[in-house]
């Protein structure tokens, strides 16, 4: 692993050079709401943010994705968009990077999903968390604010400089020919980084009790617990759209006269339409069924199938829920619930 230091004022040069080779997607401040957007110049990006409102999954698994377009004149033609764009996803937090490892299980199957190509063509530049938010709990689900496990390059803000670790070949390739921008990291730099890491870990206030969570849930599918939680749920999709591991989608044709497109859009298991069948029958008729499914999918089915909890502890669902349905509280209180 190469560990280097770049002065903050030189960071824009790095991005400038990367822009020649890559499409750069980075956190952009839109009236106080920080979101991942394509940037044309380094000045558009911000690295001063807690976390983006919408997770990085939105770049690889887009909210609206055109699968193909079609038109009909004498004959029908179908065009599948070519996706060979090389993307540099810059400023991704450790939790979001971990979420991509979760999503890989879903999309990397036998059929080629647009996600797979995008994932291959994307280089992840992570950004360590100096100040976790009030609802952050990544340390409870296998993450850490300074984790570089799932990124190609890891950036850490250590004051006047960024500490850079180029970890994979993909990452090293981005920094090829940029050596004039860096100096090697000294022991003092590494020490400073360690200090900040400890501070970040200490700042993590909330904890989710995930011990035996699979078994705990196993025995309470029929519990009245779920009905109580569901009482106050409004049934909106804020939690699922803000979630870095939620991946439900719908596909439909949007056409006008002789041409159109088959699009894939995010869908939410919180909507009753999500499971409503053509006959009108709905196997998850109540919000209680839907909330329970969301919790089980993340903390029971997914660990059973892939040996990984499908929650990365970013806390976004807690922060966006208008009525304070709090996943940490929901999981922690499963211990007290009657089966």
């Amino acid at each position, binding site marked *: 692993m190469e560990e280097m230091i770049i002065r903050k004022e030189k960071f824009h040069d790095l991005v400038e050079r990367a822009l020649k080779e890559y499409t750069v997607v980075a956190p952009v401040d839109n009236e106080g*709401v920080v979101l991942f957007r394509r940037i044309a110049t380094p000045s558009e990006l911000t690295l001063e943010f807690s976390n983006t409102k919408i997770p990085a999954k939105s770049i690889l698994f887009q909210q609206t994705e055109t699968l193909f377009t079609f038109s009909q004149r004498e004959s029908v033609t179908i065009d599948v968009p070519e996706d060979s764009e090389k993307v540099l996803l810059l400023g991704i937090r450790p939790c979001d990077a971990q979420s991509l490892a979760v999503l890989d299980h879903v999309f990397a199957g036998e059929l080629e999903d647009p996600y797979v190509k995008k994932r291959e063509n994307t280089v992840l530049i992570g950004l360590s968390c100096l100040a976790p938010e009030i609802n952050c709990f990544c340390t409870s689900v296998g993450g850490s604010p300074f984790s570089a496990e799932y990124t190609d390059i890891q950036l850490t803000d250590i004051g006047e400089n960024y500490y850079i670790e180029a970890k994979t070949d993909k990452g090293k390739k981005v920094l090829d020919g940029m050596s004039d921008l860096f100096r090697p990291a000294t022991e003092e730099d590494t020490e400073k980084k360690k200090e900040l890491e400890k501070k970040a870990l200490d700042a993590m206030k909330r904890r989710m009790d995930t011990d035996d969570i699979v078994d705990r849930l196993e025995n309470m599918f029929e519990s009245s617990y779920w009905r109580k939680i569901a009482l106050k749920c409004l049934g909106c999709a804020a939690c699922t*759209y803000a979630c870095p591991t939620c991946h439900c989608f719908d596909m439909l044709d949007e056409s006008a006269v002789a041409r159109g497109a088959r699009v894939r859009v995010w869908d939410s298991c919180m909507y009753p339409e999500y499971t409503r069948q053509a006959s009108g029958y709905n196997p998850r*008729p*109540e919000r209680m069924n839907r909330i329970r499914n969301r919790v089980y999918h993340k903390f029971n089915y997914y660990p059973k199938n892939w040996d990984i909890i499908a929650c990365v502890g970013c806390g976004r669902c807690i922060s966006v829920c208008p*009525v304070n349905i709090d996943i940490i509280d929901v999981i922690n209180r499963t211990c007290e619930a009657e089966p």
Partner: protein
Amino acid sequence: MANIDELRRIVKEIVDREDVKYVIGYEKGTYGFRVSPSFAFTPEDVEKFIFSPLCVHNLAVYPHLEEKLPLKRNEKEDTRKIGIIVKGCDSRAVAQIIQEKGLDREDVVLIGVPCTGVIDLKKINARCPHLMYGEVREENGNFIITAEGDTHRIPKEELLCDVCTQCENPNPILYDVLIGEEVESKKEDYQKVKTLEKKSLEEKWKYWEKKFDRCIRCYACRNGCPLCYCEECMVDNLSPQWVRRSVTISENTAWNIMRAYHLAGRCVGCGQCERACPMDIPLMELNKKLEKDVKELFDYQAGTEEEPVLAVFSPDDPEEFVL
């Protein structure tokens, strides 16, 4: 603000009534300044009820969220009443729904609480960030915040929700029991709307484009709104597809404007849509514009009159817009 002991005592009596299913109020949330809607089925459940300037939710949304599954053989429909704690705007929402025949007056027991304004969570979180738990009370025009051992005194107007700063109906207009003294109402001057109205078409579009661009169509605005209770929302209809599912600036604009129009003369101005929006879209600016128009054209205010504005006709109604 209502005395909490009195509120709990009265609510307990109501929960205990045979014709009442449950009462919806507020309880302490799980972190920070969050308060959560709370459902009391027994007098014991009422012990956790609170009332403070952090009780932001319009609980009038809940009667329509009750799920009615098909009845089993010999099963009778539960027609008992739902008790709801209502502030001024919340009571207007219930009144409006009743006018529209969406609810029957007999379906609900309204526990009215005069309101001196609720806090904007974004504003208080910006002032006191990263707190695990905080409480707020009001004292002589200030909010006294006690959080993790510290006490802060912040002038009320700095933390109030925008809609509360000029609330014309802080006192419940419809209730079965009123808890606490009535409070003085303020005057809405629509200053923000007037400023926007003066802008050119291009400027207005530039203003809204940035906002609609970040809409993720999670429909938290709709689901949080007590007046959004259509059996099937137009956006959920696939045939015909009035608004496409694609999340693009044009579809997002269509959605947000259609929703605002659908609430013209119906929105009670509680601000719940804007509070629920995870993307900070100032939806109340759209709603306030329509509220102002309806007030000027028809001298009408949602939830305070006998009948819905679109259900009445007066020969004096202005008709300049009819070509």
